[in-house]
């Protein structure tokens, strides 16, 4: 590292507005006689092309190796200034910015105080600059294969799109055949698409692709490693195989489960679940005695689920079309916040489906072979309605795939309060997990209708492609680094890292130490704080840099 500090300070008076309060020339003279400051310049528009070109030239001519800029907020122009100093041959991490506009001149009307603060802030930026360390970029080879877990429509769609982006994909499915819910649904209302044809077309497409490798009745057991080289242990019809991947996409969907305690009664021949009804509708030709009247009940065990209301509406219309029987739907709030769902609801009504809204749970009893239902219809001033139907179709709760709890702890990826993948607060990045290189799509982590699930499928495909587009990923090496001699291998940092970006590694073949995976690290610095031996250093925001900004106190009036 260049031993001798040569600080270059570039002040910007923002079109000479800041100079109304801040006397830039005195600051310039003060700075010039500080020991390691080699160059000070004042300009009026450092955010514009001309001034930046001049700045680059100054850096090169004066041999500046640390750049301090006193201007407006780094949030606006940090990236631009970084490319300028990079063009001048200075490492991008050797830039320290003093915010003398938004957080000084504009925020403090009292001009003398604002001027005083500006000088302090420039001095702080100088202090920080003295402790900046360069971070070099390296290119890390990555495995470009992608693992897609779950052979439902979302897994299939993601695999096809990844293949379009010529990434090699391995699609694993627990069951013996691909298709997931597509094999189960009789129709895909509100979309006028036949599920079998849709599935058949996609399966044909998959078989024609050379870069999609399908493993059925295969399950993921465990994954080691980080983004760029995950090694996944997959059990395929009870023999285990280990394969390497660069990214992993979870598309394992959801299961449904009937909970009799919530309803207070068991299933029987005339109380069936939605999935049982879907079987009947699918093989409607073999049904011997057709139910003349069918009643659906929703919003009991899955009050906030889009999927359960959607399957009720879909199956109601299916029955009307196939058997023409009398249909009624009991619900609290119809969940129709999806494309075409309101229209599906209107189609049901136009086909004579009756809708009864309840607030208190209806009483359900059996009477001479029929189901008797007493419900207070809220829309008709809570008048007690008593109806009886041949068949009652009850709602199932959607539950996460059985292995989600196990895989979540094995892979250190979070679950939400219902046990589905992905903590609640990743709303900002819907398909991201807390770990780089692991993505979620479809109903394994959210409650989605088909069109939303397909959108997520192509999102994760593009995210994985963007990560693995090249053989090698350029990444900033050792932005956060563990000193193996000081590391006591107490595992605190490995447990604390929210992105699971720290792994165990052997140091000179006998001592174990923690090591930060640059590709997976997001630079938050939590590990550096929790480390009891102070063995971890962040080059962006190191302890020395932070403490150096506490320096010049006690000089106020």
């Amino acid at each position: 590292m260049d031993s001798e500090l040569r600080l270059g300070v570039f002040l910007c008076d923002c079109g000479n507005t800041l100079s109304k309060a801040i006397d830039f020339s005195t600051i310039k003279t003060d700075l010039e006689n500080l020991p390691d400051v080699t160059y000070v310049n004042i300009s009026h528009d450092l955010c514009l092309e001309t001034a930046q070109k001049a700045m680059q030239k100054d850096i090169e001519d004066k041999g500046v190796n640390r750049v301090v800029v006193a201007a407006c907020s780094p949030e606006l122009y940090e990236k631009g200034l970084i490319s300028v100093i990079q063009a001048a041959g200075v490492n991008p991490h050797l830039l320290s910015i003093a915010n003398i506009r938004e957080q000084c001149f504009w925020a403090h009307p009292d001009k003398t105080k604002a001027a005083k603060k500006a000088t302090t802030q420039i001095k702080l930026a100088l202090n920080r600059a003295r402790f900046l360390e360069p971070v070099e970029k390296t290119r890390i080879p990555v495995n470009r294969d992608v693992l897609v877990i779950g052979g439902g429509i979302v897994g299939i769609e993601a695999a096809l799109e990844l293949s379009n982006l010529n990434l090699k994909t391995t699609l694993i499915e627990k069951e013996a055949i691909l298709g997931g819910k597509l094999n189960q649904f009789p129709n895909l209302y509100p979309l006028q698409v036949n599920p079998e044809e849709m599935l058949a077309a996609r399966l044909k497409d998959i078989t024609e692709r050379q870069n999609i490798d399908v493993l059925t009745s295969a399950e993921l057991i465990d994954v080691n490693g980080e983004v760029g080289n995950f090694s996944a242990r997959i059990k395929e019809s009870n023999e285990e195989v280990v394969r390497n991947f660069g990214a992993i996409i979870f598309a394992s969907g959801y299961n449904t489960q009937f909970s009799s305690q919530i309803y207070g009664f068991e299933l029987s021949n005339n109380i069936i679940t939605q999935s049982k009804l879907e079987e009947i509708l699918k093989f409607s030709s073999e049904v011997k005695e057709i139910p003349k009247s069918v009643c659906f009940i929703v919003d009991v065990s899955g009050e906030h689920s889009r999927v359960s209301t959607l399957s009720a509406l879909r199956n109601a219309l299916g029955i009307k079309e196939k058997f023409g029987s009398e249909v009624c739907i009991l619900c609290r709030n119809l969940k129709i916040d999806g494309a075409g769902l309101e229209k599906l609801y209107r189609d049901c009504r136009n086909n004579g489906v009756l809708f009864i809204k309840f607030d208190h749970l209806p009483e359900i009893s059996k009477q001479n072979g029929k189901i008797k239902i007493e419900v207070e219809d809220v829309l008709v001033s809570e008048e007690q309605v008593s109806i009886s139907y041949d068949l009652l179709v009850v709602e199932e709760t959607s539950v996460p795939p059985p292995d989600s709890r196990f895989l979540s702890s094995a892979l250190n990826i979070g679950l939400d309060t219902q046990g589905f993948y992905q903590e609640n607060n990743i709303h900002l990045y819907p398909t991201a997990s807390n770990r780089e290189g692991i993505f979620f799509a479809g109903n394994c982590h959210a409650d989605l209708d088909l069109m939303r699930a397909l959108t997520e499928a192509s999102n994760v495909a593009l995210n994985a492609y963007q990560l693995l587009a090249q053989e090698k990923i350029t990444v900033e090496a050792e932005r956060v680094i563990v000193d193996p001699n000081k590391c006591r291998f107490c595992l605190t940092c490995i447990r604390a890292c929210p992105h699971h970006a720290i792994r165990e590694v052997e140091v000179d073949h006998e001592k174990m130490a923690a090591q930060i995976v640059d590709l997976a690290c997001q630079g938050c610095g939590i590990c550096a704080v929790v480390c009891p031996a102070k063995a971890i250093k962040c080059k962006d925001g190191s302890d020395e840099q932070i403490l150096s900004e506490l320096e010049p106190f006690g000089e106020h009036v």
Partner: protein
Amino acid sequence: MIIAERKPLEDIQEMITGYKKILILGCGTCVTICWAGGEKEVAVLSSQLRLASKKNGNELAILEDTIERQCEKELIEVLKDKVQQADAVLSMACGIGVQTVAEIFPDVPVYPALNTKFMGMPEREGVWVETCRACGDCFLDKTGGICPIVRCAKGLLNGPCGGTNNGKCEVDPEKDCAWTLIYRKLERQGRLDVMRKYYPPRNFQTVIRPGKIETLQA
């Protein structure tokens, strides 16, 4: 490993009143791992003591250092010149470390900053629990690997006592009854006959203080 906990600040302040310059010495092994006496805690304690001395107006200079292990004579001898500069040493090691430093530097007063609590393991991040008391005659072969001396409130050898209710200890309802755990473990391994034997109370007489082990320099 050895688990320790920092003493309250007033006790430490009481110890070092009157000294102008002290060396706070951290230990890099067990007490670092249990977040009590590592380099981080040395820095925190020094910062606290500097703040307190500034606040009370008495002048105090603090040298900070952390070495690999304070239970190794050779590693401590190396600190000779640093210790000479200080009027006293505040050791943030377990009791073993404090005594080793005191032994190597007899004319410098050495004070403990931590209370050495027990030998144990982490239950989860930031929580440590005692699992062994070094009673000198390990009993674990008879209890399927669960030590009743430490984990049973009464240290019974032929438990469980009458007070256990569905697996919880009568002394502290939060705690599992060690003997119920032992019973379930042995049942699981099909070795319940081990519990049928009667084990006489321990003869703690045999433990002469301080314990010593001599191995031939082979």
